[in-house]
């Protein structure tokens, strides 16, 4: 399998802080969408920054489209489209002027595609960016990221703060992007229902460590959450549980194979879990 992005043992420490990225490893196969989830401050943005080489990593390797990116490798940069939570376009520019700037930055800048995409998003080309709503600004950022024709999109909370209608429209754009099987997306989002719709894989990160990377379908169809009474819980093999959380009247147990678990322990109710619930158990649960 070829990968658009391969991260191996990525480590980053900060002198004045406890926070660190601790041997972060995961890969995105070409043509797929990776959802990247974790609490605030778990290391998602730091990982993305290290991938983009905007912060210096201490250790580990990051390969974009099979190559490591150094400070001078601007040709790889052209292949990566980026949308971050905070948009840093100058507010006094209009989209039309911004496009001129971008055309100077990116060799691959596709003006025709930019005009088509902004028209599709109903972006006013002559209006100053500071007068744009959040939704419009994010759509503009996405149009810019797509218009230098990248192969990999890196999106940090790109759909945060957007209404469901705009989000649905943007998800459609992402799926359209991966219609080309060489294209891939790494996207972090707290709106896990968006990831449940379009992501192929999910990576969970917690305190700077990757705790799980798994196919999304496997997570939502095969994984399960067993709802146990105290005496039922006593009978379960430790090896059959990934994590558990005691609540007032029941114990929730995360299991990897819902059907096998049901066969082995009859009488215990096993639900399918959402990404949110699975994340909660992986992070807050005991092991």
């Amino acid at each position, binding site marked *: 399998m070829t990968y658009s992005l391969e991260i191996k043992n990525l480590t980053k420490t900060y002198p004045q802080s406890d926070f660190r990225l601790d041997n972060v490893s995961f890969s995105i196969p070409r*043509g*797929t*969408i990776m959802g990247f989830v974790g609490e605030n401050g778990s290391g998602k943005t730091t990982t993305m920054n290290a991938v983009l080489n905007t912060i210096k990593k201490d250790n580990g390797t990051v390969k974009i489209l099979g190559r490591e990116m150094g400070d001078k490798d601007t040709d790889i940069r052209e292949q990566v489209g980026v949308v971050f939570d905070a948009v840093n376009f100058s507010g006094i520019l209009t989209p039309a002027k911004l496009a001129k700037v971008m055309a100077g930055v990116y060799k691959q800048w596709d003006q025709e595609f930019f005009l088509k995409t902004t028209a599709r998003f109903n972006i006013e080309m002559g209006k100053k960016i500071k007068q744009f709503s959040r939704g419009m600004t994010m759509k503009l950022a996405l149009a810019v990221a797509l218009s230098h024709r990248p192969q990999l999109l890196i999106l940090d909370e790109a759909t945060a703060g957007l209404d469901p209608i705009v989000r*649905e429209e943007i*998800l*459609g754009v992402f*799926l*359209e992007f*991966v*219609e*080309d*099987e060489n294209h891939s997306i790494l996207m972090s989002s707290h709106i896990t229902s968006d990831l449940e*719709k*379009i*992501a*192929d*894989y999910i990576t969970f990160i917690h305190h700077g460590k990757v705790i799980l990377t798994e*196919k*999304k*379908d496997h997570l939502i*169809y095969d994984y399960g959450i067993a709802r146990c009474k105290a005496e039922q819980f006593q009978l379960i093999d430790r090896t059959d549980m990934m994590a558990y959380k005691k609540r007032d009247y029941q114990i929730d147990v995360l299991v990897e194979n819902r059907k096998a678990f049901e066969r082995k322990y009859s009488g215990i109710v096993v639900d*399918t879990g959402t990404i949110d619930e699975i994340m909660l158990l992986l992070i807050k649960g005991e092991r």
Partner: protein
Amino acid sequence: MDIIISSNTSKPIYEQITSQIKAMIMNGDLQTGDPIPSMRSLAKSIHVSVITVQKAYEDLQRDGFIETTVGRGSFVSAQNRDFMQEELQKKVEEHLNLAVETARTGGIKLEKMIELLTIFYTEE
């Protein structure tokens, strides 16, 4: 071609895709050699992830309903419809057998089973 995806059912999305395409082949809406959409364009159209559609197509291919050629896309494969019908009937018999055994152990009467079966078959 219509494919309807419901998010309000326990049936996984890839199964919803396979069962609807199988039904279209069985009832003749899709004929041998007819093209079916590429995985990626179907994923885009119904707003689901690529791997979900990929799994559905792999299952359809394994069961002999479609063929995929690299670079050309996926097509309904040539097949003996009687054979497929027979296969499906065998499957139904297996499931019914299981239901009958369970019913016997639980002392559930034949009339009750027929009643249940009628409800299930006509509801969907």
